[in-house]
Every structure is written in structure tokens, then in C-alpha cells.
């Protein structure tokens, strides 16, 4: 497929590409930190979208792959002395392997049963890591500061990590689009609409679901490693926040599930909203309640999310808003 000729691909790609570029040109540390968080959530939400939006399987444990992959990648950096880009790949591969094992069990479940099982997986992973000594138990791991020297000091290392994250998120978007436009992606949509019918029509549902799960799990492992490397430490409560799984879900819903641009807009909007609420005088103490209210209004009145609503409202824009 020739990506150049795809109008639906470019708005999403350019949005992420240009916002990363702006940060690199301006070179402000605070801007980089904000952009890091937003990009991270874009990557996590877009990768969740492959399973949740395209395939229709709601995963409450997406953060497990962020946590376990991140833990493993961090372990490779801090204990084994691997360079961070290789360690991140290691984290991603481990996430995919875990997804294969977990998926073999839980992907046999459908609908709400699958969703419940993923809640269990999330909690089991957190509880396990809190007790697993090589990963530092409940206090977690700290990076040895000499690990930053390789990249010319801590300041440079942070910029380097940011560029890596930017590239990873761009990769997520390319992969999401390729999946969506492929025969495989059509199979996933068929599974989402009616799994039994899809199987009768010749879609190999167990295989396709597993593949979607593997792809969806790979990127959080990468992103997790970069995030914890940037933070300099990793601990179980930080790595397996159930709340964060839910926030990612909210972002996908906010922008529009199943759309390429949806999670990007959703992640951006949610982060901006949270930033505004946290700093505003009136809402500072009520930011959680306000986010909840926003979510409730979206679920009740705009179930297609922001981008989905635009598509419905302006049919001419549809080819651009994939």
C-alpha cells in the first residue's frame, strides 16, 4: 500500500510529527515534560485502540504491558547495562510474549467476561511484582546514574529518551493505520461486529485476535521502558495503576474508538483537561469529579467520541478523519 496516497493517514501522522518537532526546535525542559506525557498517552491509547477499537475487546489490563514490559526494560538498563533503545525493544518483546501467554487463556472469553479477566490480570501482575525480589519487591528499582553518562549526562539522556518516544509513537500510528487498512484489519472489524459470523465467513478469529493482542501489547512495553528510564525509578504502584488503564480507556472513548485520529485527539484533550483542572483554583480539588462528569456526558450523549461526532456531522471530512 502506498501511504502517500492515503488521506486518512496524514492528519494523524502530521499532528504527532509536528508537535514533536516543535518541542525539539524550542528545546524547553518543561515543554518536553508535558509533551512526553501527552505523547506517552497517545502511544498507549492508540495501541489499546488496536484491540479495543478494531477488535472490540475491552482490555482493562493494558497497563500490565506498560508495567511488566517497562519493568523488564528498566531491569535491562539498570542491572544489565543495556543501552536504552535495545532495552526498550526487549521490554516490548517481553510484553508481546506475555500477551501471547495471557491471550491463550483470556482471549477465549468474550465481552464483559474478557473485560473482567483483564481486571484480574492487572491486579495479579501488580501483586506479583510487589513480591518479586529481582524486581526490587515493593520498593522497586532505581537507575544507576552512570547509565545516563552514555548519552552525555542526564539532561541529554532525557532529550534522547524523548526522541525515542516520539519515534515509537509515530511507529504506533503507522502500524495502526496499516493494520486498519489490511485484510487482517478487516477480519478484526468482522470479529468486532459479530465473531461467530466472522468465523463462519472464514476469518480465523483465534489467530487474528491473538495477533491483535500481540501488536497491541508490544508498544506499551516500549513506552514503559522509556517512561521509567526518564523517571529514573520504577515501583509497582506506579507501574500498575488500574486508574491509568481506565484513563487510557477514557481517552480512546473521548476521541472515538476504532478511528486512527480518535485516541490521539482523546489523549491530547484528556491531558489538557486534566492539566487545566489541576491548576485552576475552582476545580483543583474537584478535578477527578469533573473528569468523571465529562466522561459521563460523553458516554451518554456522544458515544462516538469527538472525532466520531465530526465524522457524523460532516460527511465530507470522513476521508480525512479515519
Amino acid at each position, binding site marked *: 500500500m502506498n501511504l502517500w496516497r492515503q488521506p486518512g493517514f496524514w492528519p494523524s501522522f502530521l499532528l504527532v510529527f509536528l508537535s514533536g518537532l516543535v518541542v525539539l526546535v524550542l528545546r524547553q525542559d518543561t515543554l518536553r515534560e508535558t509533551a512526553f506525557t501527552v505523547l506517552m498517552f497517545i502511544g498507549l491509547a492508540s495501541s489499546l485502540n488496536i484491540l479495543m477499537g478494531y477488535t472490540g475487546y*475491552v482490555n482493562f489490563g493494558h497497563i500490565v504491558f506498560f508495567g511488566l514490559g517497562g519493568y523488564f526494560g528498566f531491569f535491562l538498563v539498570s542491572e544489565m547495562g543495556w543501552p536504552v533503545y535495545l532495552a526498550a525493544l526487549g521490554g516490548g518483546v517481553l510484553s508481546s510474549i506475555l500477551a501471547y501467554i495471557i491471550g491463550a*487463556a*483470556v482471549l*477465549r*472469553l468474550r*465481552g*464483559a*467476561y474478557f*473485560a*473482567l*479477566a483483564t*481486571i*484480574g*490480570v492487572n*491486579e*495479579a501482575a*501488580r*501483586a*506479583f511484582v*510487589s*513480591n518479586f525480589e529481582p524486581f526490587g519487591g*515493593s520498593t522497586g528499582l532505581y537507575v544507576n546514574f552512570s547509565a545516563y553518562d552514555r548519552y552525555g549526562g542526564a539532561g541529554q539522556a532525557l532529550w534522547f529518551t524523548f526522541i525515542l518516544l516520539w519515534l515509537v509513537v509515530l511507529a504506533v500510528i503507522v502500524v495502526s493505520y496499516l493494520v486498519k487498512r489490511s485484510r487482517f484489519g478487516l477480519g478484526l472489524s468482522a470479529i468486532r461486529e459479530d465473531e461467530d459470523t466472522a468465523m463462519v465467513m472464514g476469518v480465523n478469529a483465534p489467530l487474528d485476535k491473538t495477533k491483535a493482542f500481540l501488536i497491541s501489547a508490544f508498544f506499551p512495553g516500549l513506552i514503559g521502558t522509556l517512561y521509567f528510564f526518564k523517571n529514573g525509578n520504577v515501583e509497582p504502584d506506579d507501574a500498575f495503576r*488500574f486508574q491509568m488503564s*481506565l484513563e487510557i*480507556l*477514557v481517552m480512546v*472513548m473521548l476521541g472515538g474508538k476504532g478511528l486512527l485520529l480518535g485516541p490521539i485527539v482523546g489523549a491530547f484533550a484528556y491531558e489538557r483537561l486534566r492539566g487545566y483542572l489541576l491548576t485552576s483554583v475552582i476545580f483543583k*480539588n*474537584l*478535578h*477527578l*469529579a*469533573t*473528569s*468523571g*462528569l465529562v*466522561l*459521563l456526558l460523553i*458516554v*451518554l450523549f456522544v*458515544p462516538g467520541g469527538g472525532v466520531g461526532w465530526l465524522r457524523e456531522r460532516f460527511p465530507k471530512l470522513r476521508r480525512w478523519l479515519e
Partner: protein
Amino acid sequence: MIHVLPSIIDGLLIGFVYGVAAMGLTLIWGVMRVINLGHGATMALGMFCTYFLFSDLALNPYLGMVAVVVLSLLFGFLIYGVALQRVIQSGYLSTLLATFAVNMIIIGIGTAVFTTSPRNIDFSAGSITLGPVILQGTRLLAALAAVVITGALYLFLYFTRPGKAIRAVSDNRAAAELMGIPSSHVLALAFGLGTMLAAVAGGLTSTFFPFTILSGATYQLKSFVICVLGGLGNPLGALVGGLFLGALEGIVPTFMPVSWVPVVEFVLFVLVLVVKPTGLLGAK
């Protein structure tokens, strides 16, 4: 064996209360096909309600439970009307997110109003000594209350018209509607009852454990585990599952570190879901 006995009995008594919370969750699932992610937050509200009745009005926590019952039932109707009625037909993702939004709103307002500093209800109901076993009065009373509530729920579901309507809607909503059952009222009632059970379980828990507005989350997860053990949608299974989980929490720490308890619980949870999604007591 003899040294394990006190912790098993203690666990079983707490298990009754877990069972009540899980019954609420399983009732809502069975009748409405909704996984209520606001269950934990409702439990926390029950804890605070009991706490304020006790500390400000000096009301006995078990008498206060009557007020908790009424308030939480109304609260359940309110949540159903505002957050669920519109999306009840549109699939489990919408209802999951709607209840999660309710959860965020309750926790958000609760954190702002009550802060997250722990509170506890300083109420003692004495204790009974049976051989090597010392039974805390509050836990005995809580278990007793749980049994009474379960009995009342059973009588309500099997011997009253609204109860039968709930079971009919749970069996087959379309058929129930054809028989003239106003399913929207029945769903509201089921959600109200489920919310009530959560709040009462929260209230009972608050008499023996300190709590914050965030405490509900742990119990909500336990409720999920219990529901799956007992079979989703099966209230009796929920009680049995609660007892099982309570006993497990009593036994596990006697031979491995207490921090491994959640690992055991959630691995069991996923295993049961995968191997036998109808629950340990479920049919087939």
C-alpha cells in the same frame, strides 16, 4: 491445625460481609448485564454514612444501618436514572464507562470533602471466647447482619411480586416485557438493591477496619473475585464465594507472607474465569 482455626473463623466472619458486597454486584450483573465499577465507591459511601451517624448522632452502627439502607436505595435509583437508563441497551462498554464515571465523581467529591485521612469507628461489642478462639463482637454482629440481609433478599426475590419481576427480567428481559413487566422500573429496583447491598457491606466493614474514601476499590476487586468464584449472577454463589475468599485470606497468611494473598486471589480469579466461567457453583 488448631493454630489455623482462629484465623479461619475470623476470615469466615469477614467473608460474610464480603459476600454481601458481592451479592450486590452479582445482582446488578445478573439482572442488568452491567458490571458496576462504582460498587467500591458506593461501599465507601456506606462506610462514611455509618461513621457520621455514629460520631455525630451517636447512633449505634447497627441501628444506623437502617438509615444506610434507605439512603443507599434512593441513591441507587438516582444513579440508575442519571447514568444508566440511557445506555442500558447500548452494550457493556457504555455501561462500564458510565459506572466508572460515577465512580470518579463519587471518589472525586469524596476526596475533596472528606480528604483521604483514615477514619475508624470506635465501637466495641465485646468478645466471646470459645476454647482457643476469640470472637470479636463486631465481626459476629456483622456476620449475623449479613445472614439476615441474605435471608431477607432471598425472601424478597422468591416471595414478593417485585422480587419475582426481578428474576423474570434477569431470565429474559424481552419475554418479561411481553408479560407486562415494566422492565425499566425493575432494572432501577435491581440497581437500587445492588447499591444498597454495597453500602450496607461498607457500613459493616467500617465497624472493624479503618477506612478512607478510597478503601472501596480493594473491596470492589474482592467482590469481582467472589462473583466469579460463585458464578456471575448467582446471589447464593456470591455468599459462598465470600466465605471461601474470607477463609482463604485467613489460611494463606499462615504458610506464606501476607503480601502474597492478592497474588493467590487474582490468579484464582483468572483461572476460574478461564476454566469455568460459570463459577465453581455454576451449572455445567
